[in-house]
């Protein structure tokens, strides 16, 4: 196996004569392997061999399940939005509810009975028509079969009864009024396919392709952990998509995604960092899209962890029960500095809990209510409240507790880490010492559930209907016993709870509901337990030489990936002469040819030399 006379050298810089044959062999091998580059180079470009316009999207997560009853990850639910229709949908420009499978709906006076009329021009991709029975079956299955409730069970937990009155009418009876009846994000599945499936808890819907659905695209292939392919559904009742094919390619590494975009192998990347967005801005054939974020970034303060029954637990700093201290903390933080230093300007300084892109519900404090950056004011507040500075400059609470606060930061989120450092500095300025614990999210979650933290980072993606993110701060969301909390703060406020009930009851009066929701945000802001710092922009980029135009949501200023609806992909228009960016350049071909020639020549020469010296060796 080891033949010293025939060494392969990978690098230059040594005597050439003895190594000629080795080098030649190595280069020949490399050339052979690289050869497919000439024939099969980057077929993933916009136009594939069969002439179909293909849009390739980089996915950062693998798909967890293709079953609408089980799928929880954004990649999977985004694919379901393409492959299945929903009762209602959201307008691409305004986020407002628009008809989906239901073309109209009405409610009873008590809000407990909802009647939806199902459109008659929707068909499943196998030709059957979509009926009220399919809708009723989907919802009923979720209420009856626990494993079918895995993904979207919260939507139907309050359903008393679902009935298909006739082919085009569905009636839902509720136990209590529910705000999300026009925002039921549940893919409707075909009963005739799904009714024979035994165990919904272990059925991943990834065996029979194409998968029967009713959306603008049909799922036609799945290479686990590699890619998912969808083809346009020409019979879709809205306008069928312009692209013939849509491929989601799993690429866990963000930098590798950006490189693939540069190479033209993929058409779209999302979740860019500010640095990547800046770099891509100057790349030819690439368009960067900056959208208002759906997420907020912030932190919560431990106001004293307690269960619903009032049993206290955990070891939060006792002084944090004091609203003055919490508000002083907020006045010490410079949100504009965070926007500039952490997000490179790609964010908005935040006040209200609901991001600015949802202008119906977004709230901004009035001038007199604002807790803006003002270290002088923060210091005065603390001085007046009796927090005196110790010899080391760190304040001590009136009860004698030194203000040293633990701050838990997710170590897998660079923006949080940078934000944490800035916060530690700013709080130091007002005499609060920060014990910065940048840790694994698992450690962080354990600390939260045990109530063993002081400040902890958080962030939520907010849906067009804000019910859920508001609900997690009601007293009801407190744990029934220590360690079982589903929220991210131990916030409990009677006024807030009353308003929460009211916004639920005013589901049919958007104006009144928006006012209530704004008052709730004001309470959160003033109590300063749940603190929002920024709404980071969504940074995305696509190849403008493959995609001529694409819908953002909301329009203008919206995002492309993770929309509420299928608009971006169903409306994207292929570029007229979609150019594959990854064609092998001429100079590379010439270079490769030269290398192969030299290698072959060298090989022949070396063989002759060896033959000549063969006798000598024996």
């Amino acid at each position: 196996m080891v033949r010293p006379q025939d060494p392969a050298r990978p690098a230059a810089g040594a005597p050439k004569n003895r190594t000629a044959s080795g080098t030649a062999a190595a280069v020949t091998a490399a050339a052979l392997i690289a050869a497919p580059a000439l024939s099969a180079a980057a077929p993933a470009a916009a136009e594939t061999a069969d002439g179909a316009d293909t849009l390739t999207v980089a996915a950062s997560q693998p798909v967890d399940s293709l079953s609408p009853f089980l799928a929880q990850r954004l990649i999977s639910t985004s694919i379901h939005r393409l492959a299945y229709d929903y009762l209602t949908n959201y307008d691409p420009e305004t986020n407002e509810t628009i008809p989906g499978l239901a073309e109209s709906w009405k409610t009873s006076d008590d809000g407990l009975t909802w009647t939806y009329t199902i459109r008659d021009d929707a068909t499943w991709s196998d030709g059957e028509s979509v009926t009220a029975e399919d809708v009723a079956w989907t919802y009923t299955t979720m209420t009856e079969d626990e494993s079918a409730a895995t993904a979207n069970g919260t939507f139907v937990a309050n359903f008393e009864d679902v009935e298909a009155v006739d082919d085009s009418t569905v009636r839902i009876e509720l136990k209590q009024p529910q705000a999300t009846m026009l925002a039921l994000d549940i893919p409707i599945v075909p009963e005739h396919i799904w009714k024979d499936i035994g165990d919904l808890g272990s059925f991943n819907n990834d065996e029979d392709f194409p998968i029967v659905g009713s959306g603008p695209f049909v799922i036609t292939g799945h290479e686990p952990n590699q890619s998912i392919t969808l083809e346009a559904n020409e019979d879709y009742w809205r306008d069928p998509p312009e692209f013939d094919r849509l491929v989601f390619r799993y690429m866990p590494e963000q930098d590798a995604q950006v490189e693939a975009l540069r190479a033209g192998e993929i058409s779209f990347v999302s979740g860019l960092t500010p640095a990547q967005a800046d770099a891509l801005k100057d790349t030819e054939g690439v368009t960067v899209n900056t959208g208002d974020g759906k997420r907020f970034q912030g932190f919560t303060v431990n106001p004293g962890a307690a269960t619903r029954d009032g049993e206290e637990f955990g070891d939060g700093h006792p002084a944090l029960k004091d609203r003055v201290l919490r508000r002083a903390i907020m006045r010490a933080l410079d949100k504009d500095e965070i926007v500039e230093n952490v997000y490179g300007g790609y964010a908005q300084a935040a006040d209200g809990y609901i991001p600015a892109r949802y202008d119906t519900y977004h709230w901004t404090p009035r001038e007199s209510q604002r807790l803006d950056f003002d270290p002088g004011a923060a210091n005065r507040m603390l001085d007046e409240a009796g927090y005196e500075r110790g010899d080391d400059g760190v304040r001590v609470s009136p009860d004698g507790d030194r203000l040293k606060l633990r701050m838990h930061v997710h170590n897998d989120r660079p923006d949080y880490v940078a934000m944490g450092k800035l916060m530690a500095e700013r709080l130091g300025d007002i005499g609060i010492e920060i014990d910065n614990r940048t840790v694994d999210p698992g450690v962080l979650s354990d600390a939260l559930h045990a109530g063993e933290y002081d400040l902890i980072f958080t962030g939520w993606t907010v849906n067009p209907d804000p019910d859920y993110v508001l609900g997690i701060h009601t007293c009801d969301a407190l744990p029934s016993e220590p360690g079982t909390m589903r929220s991210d703060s131990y916030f409990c406020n009677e006024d807030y709870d009353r308003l929460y009930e009211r916004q639920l009851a005013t589901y049919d009066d958007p104006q009144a509901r928006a006012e209530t929701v704004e008052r709730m945000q004001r309470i959160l802001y003033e109590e300063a337990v749940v603190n929002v710092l920024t709404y980071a922009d969504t940074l995305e980029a696509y190849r403008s030489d493959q995609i001529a135009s694409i819908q953002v949501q909301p329009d203008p200023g919206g995002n492309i990936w993770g929309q509420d609806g299928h608009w971006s992909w169903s409306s994207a228009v292929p570029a007229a002469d979609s150019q594959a960016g990854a064609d092998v350049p001429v100079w590379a071909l010439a270079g490769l040819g030269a290398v192969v020639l030299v290698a072959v020549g060298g090989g022949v020469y070396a063989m002759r030399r060896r033959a000549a010296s063969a006798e000598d060796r024996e």
Partner: protein
Amino acid sequence: MDTPSGAGRPAAGPTARRGRPGLHPAVRYLGGRVLTAVVSLLAVMVTSFFLFRVLPGDPVAALTQGRSVSVDQLEAMRRDFGLDQPLPQQFVDYCLGMMTLDFGMSYQYRVPVSELIAERLGPTLLLAGTGTVIAAVLGLVLGTRSGWRRGSLMDRVDTGIALTLWSVPSFWLGLLLIVLLASGAGLFPTSGMSSPGVEGTFAVALDVAHHMVLPVATMVAVVYAQYMMIMRSSVLDEMGADYLTTARAKGLRDAVVLRRHAVPNALLPTVTLIFLNLGRVVSGVILIETVFAWPGLGSLFYSGLRVPDLPIVQALFVVFAGSVIIMNLLADLVYPLLDPRVRT
């Protein structure tokens, strides 16, 4: 993570037990090795269960993070995963499962873990196997030359290059290659194992080979130094040996002395290393698989750790450690064939 006891040269080999009556020494040697392997494997199994339960984080909370879920749903998931059982009960279930090679259901993918492993084993063996073979051959050849001509310019340059690459982080080198050769020069695909829509055995093979070049090159570049340095030092060890002088005195050419006499003796430690690394082939090259989106076991482990998806990480831990143990055992068994001194 791996490399349990009993690695490397059988230092506490049969000689230590020589003289006891009864079994044939070879059987005793064999029996001892197998027994050690079995005990190690059991220890790994037990460790695996507890190790990952010490990991912070609640799988159910992690899986549902940022989604609207009710307390009932959380409890249902916990029941589904068997996490509502007391720990001893979970341990018993786990052990019984392991005995029958039933690794349980993955929390996040909801398929049996054994299916996942079977699916991912191929790509990992292909990538890491190819990489290991190339790195070993390259390392042996370069190491032999460097050792034989110690101190020469060639030795210094080769060693320098190898050690520089050895100290380069693999994900960084991978990205660099992507930037230069894939998106830059456009010679190779940036990631993945195959292109969609390629059909025909030969075309698919070419396509996969094409996708493999960069990840394999990255892996070889980063690991070949260890084979090279071990081979180099074992050749150096043999340099002064009397039998080489004898061989030269017979009038053999220098190259023949090296090939027929020095190399066979110097190979022993390197062979052990190769066997150990063959065991590690299965665990793949996590970072390289991640950078190149290679659908192997390494990226499966990575995705399992993030949750933590206990059935996946437990099973993979056992599989990874088990393959090292088995390769170790094989190395021990092959050793007597290569080195008569161990046979006794």
